[in-house]
């Protein structure tokens, strides 16, 4: 166009009007093309309504603003043109200098990714995802920003991230729980097999509760479903579910409850009602006084003592009771309907109000093989009520020889001198078959004896029965042949062993009976040949109990009758 105004200027030589017209026509075409291009570009920009496309000058002021930008950011074009482009950043990002950093990076690297929360005109936010590019050509120095709204994707990512994080958290919590379970099971297991079977049962109970929790989305879970899941592996038709309140428990409470019920059911199957052919269990859950009260009642099983016992199960149960009291879940420990791992017959024979005198002071203890519970002439600080296992009362002679003078198992107590008013005894109490007992501090027993007439009477009758046992044993050891004494002794052990086989060495039997080992060998060989017992690898198996009773002298039966008469205690001896 300059050439039209300045035809004879410094431009190229003009060769005639035809040439000029052609040139003008060409320029017009180019102009039309340019306009068309611009219109097309504008149309593209406007049509790309999913994309906010805007340009700014080098200082960040908006120089163009498409429909997508209007839609996404809220400002219309007239408002946006000349506006500070930083306004589309969140105030926090502006304060941090994020817009300037983005421009600097775009200049230095040719592009800058823009992935962040952005602000709309009305202050609401969206997740913008796009690029900032330095403009080239005529608008050089300015910037082009292209971005789209990826809020939905971002929220999806965040949700997934949260889920993954939550999953990791739950897995770690479960691992912590399993580790705690392993440690606590291990502390109490007698051997590896015992550990594995107890641990496996607990792990399965945990898996059952996890199934329910994941069904419920790790929110609260219905009580009835938890109870059913906990009892299912133990239910052979003898576990009856009464009314269970409609209530939902949070995941931690659900887990504790299922583990606790698993322990109750396991105990019932091992030592309680479910161990007896006609025993049964009834469980109910009702709401009383704003609390959930679960009651577990066993019927038709061996006599049960109130909630005392050793081991993981009882400890966990006690713990759940204490732990959940604030959480409005507690167990209803009725003396008539409890599972318990220690069943000492003296304690079980006490009326409930007198048992209550002792209950707070009883503590569950292990009886370890060869453990000395009471030493000769040393003050007795704890008395023991065995629930399983066996304790020998052993007299030491001056030459260092030991001899057993009496036996105590779940029918009795260790610590009679205290009942009879003495502080110490003349014989040693030594564990001969490992088991479990409830320990009672001497002071607590003395206090309870002052207030409990039935307790006093019962323990005095036991003292008399035990005296008969000691006297009869002494007489027997003095007069009867070794095989009769051995048979008597094996019957006494069998009564307390809780099974037909028990670990026993001939040396030990010799010591207990005050016989030379060779004598025991001969006598045991005789019993073995007649098929009454089997003796192998340090274990004795009683094969023929009537045969053993027939071999024994009258001493076994005499002592047993005394126990029955004095204590109404059938297997006493």
């Amino acid at each position, binding site marked *: 166009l300059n050439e039209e105004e300045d035809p004879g200027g410094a431009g190229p030589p003009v060769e005639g009007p035809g040439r000029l017209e052609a040139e003008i026509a060409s320029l017009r075409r180019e102009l039309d093309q340019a306009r068309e291009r611009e219109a097309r570009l504008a149309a593209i920009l406007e049509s790309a309504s999913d994309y906010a496309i805007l340009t700014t000058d080098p200082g960040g002021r908006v120089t163009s603003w498409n429909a997508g930008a209007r839609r996404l950011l809220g400002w219309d074009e007239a408002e946006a043109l000349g506006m500070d482009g930083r306004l589309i950043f969140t105030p926090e990002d502006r304060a941090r200098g994020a817009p300037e950093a983005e421009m600097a990076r775009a200049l230095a690297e040719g592009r800058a990714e823009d992935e962040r929360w952005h602000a709309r005109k009305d202050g609401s936010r969206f997740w913008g995802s796009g690029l900032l590019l330095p403009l080239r050509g005529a608008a050089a120095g300015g910037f082009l920003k292209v971005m789209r709204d990826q809020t939905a994707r971002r929220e999806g990512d965040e949700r997934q991230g949260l889920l993954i994080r939550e999953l*990791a*958290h739950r897995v770690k919590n479960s691992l*912590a729980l399993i580790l*705690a*379970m392993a440690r606590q099971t291990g502390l109490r297991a007698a051997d590896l097999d015992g550990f594995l079977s107890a641990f496996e049962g607990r792990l399965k109970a945990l898996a059952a509760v996890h199934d329910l929790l994941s069904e419920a989305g790790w929110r609260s879970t219905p009580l009835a479903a938890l109870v059913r899941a906990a009892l299912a592996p133990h239910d052979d038709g003898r576990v009856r579910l009464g009314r269970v309140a409609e209530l939902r428990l949070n995941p931690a409470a659900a887990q504790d409850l299922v583990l606790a019920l698993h322990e109750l059911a396991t105990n019932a199957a091992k030592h309680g009602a479910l161990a007896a052919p006609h025993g049964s269990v009834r469980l109910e859950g009702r709401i009383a006084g704003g609390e959930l009260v679960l009651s577990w009642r066993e019927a038709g099983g061996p006599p049960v003592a109130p909630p005392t016992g050793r081991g993981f199960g009882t*400890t966990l149960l006690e713990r759940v009771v204490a*732990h959940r009291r604030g959480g409005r879940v507690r167990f209803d420990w009725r003396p008539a309907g409890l599972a318990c791992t220690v069943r000492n017959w003296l304690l079980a024979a006490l009326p409930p109000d007198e048992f209550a005198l002792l209950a707070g002071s009883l503590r569950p203890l292990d009886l370890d093989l060869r453990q000395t519970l009471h030493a000769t002439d040393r003050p007795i600080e704890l008395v023991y009520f065995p629930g399983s296992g066996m304790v020998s009362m052993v007299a030491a002679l001056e030459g260092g020889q030991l001899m057993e003078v009496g036996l105590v198992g779940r029918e009795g107590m260790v610590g009679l001198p205290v009942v009879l008013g003495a502080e110490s005894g003349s014989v040693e109490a030594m564990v001969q078959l490992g088991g479990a007992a409830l320990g009672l501090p001497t002071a607590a027993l003395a206090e309870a004896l002052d207030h409990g007439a039935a307790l006093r009477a019962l323990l005095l009758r036991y003292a008399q029965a035990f005296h008969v046992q000691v006297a009869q044993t002494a007489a027997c050891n003095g007069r009867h042949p070794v095989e009769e004494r051995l048979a008597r002794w094996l019957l006494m052990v069998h009564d307390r062993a809780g099974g037909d086989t028990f670990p026993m060495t001939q040396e030990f039997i010799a010591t207990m009976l005050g016989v030379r080992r060779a004598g025991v060998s001969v006598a045991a060989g005789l019993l073995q040949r007649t098929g009454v017992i089997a003796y192998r690898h340090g274990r004795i198996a009683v094969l023929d109990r009537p045969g053993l009773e027939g071999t024994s002298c009258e001493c076994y039966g005499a002592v047993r009758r005394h126990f029955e008469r004095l204590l109404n205690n059938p297997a006493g001896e």
Partner: protein
Amino acid sequence: MRGDAMRDGESAARPNGAGLHGLKVLVAEDEALVALDLECTLRELGCDVLPAAPSVAGALAILGAERPDVALLDVSLADGSAAPVAAALAAAGVPFAVVTGHDAGGIGEAALRAAPRLGKPYGLRDLRATLARLSAASR
């Protein structure tokens, strides 16, 4: 019982962070079995363990009556986030650690996020190291 005797014997002369004997520890944990095991382990280490609290309310009640030397908090307790317990501990100047399966990013509250973390599942050595660190800070 042997553990008890040992603890009682040594708590009178509480060492200044050299060992953990007699260190009075508050545990806030809502899973009974995990709490039981933690208490058991702490006792083995010779610590004087306050009865574990399953809830914020329980922990605050204990703090109303006792002043532990250090505390171990699970991030979420039976009745909500342990943040109020953390605030009460901070106000009383009792150093504490959070015991959690979360990584730092998974912990919402700043007061809990900033505390030393004992990651679940933890071994004896991790527990001992955390206690030693807290015990040193409690002096």
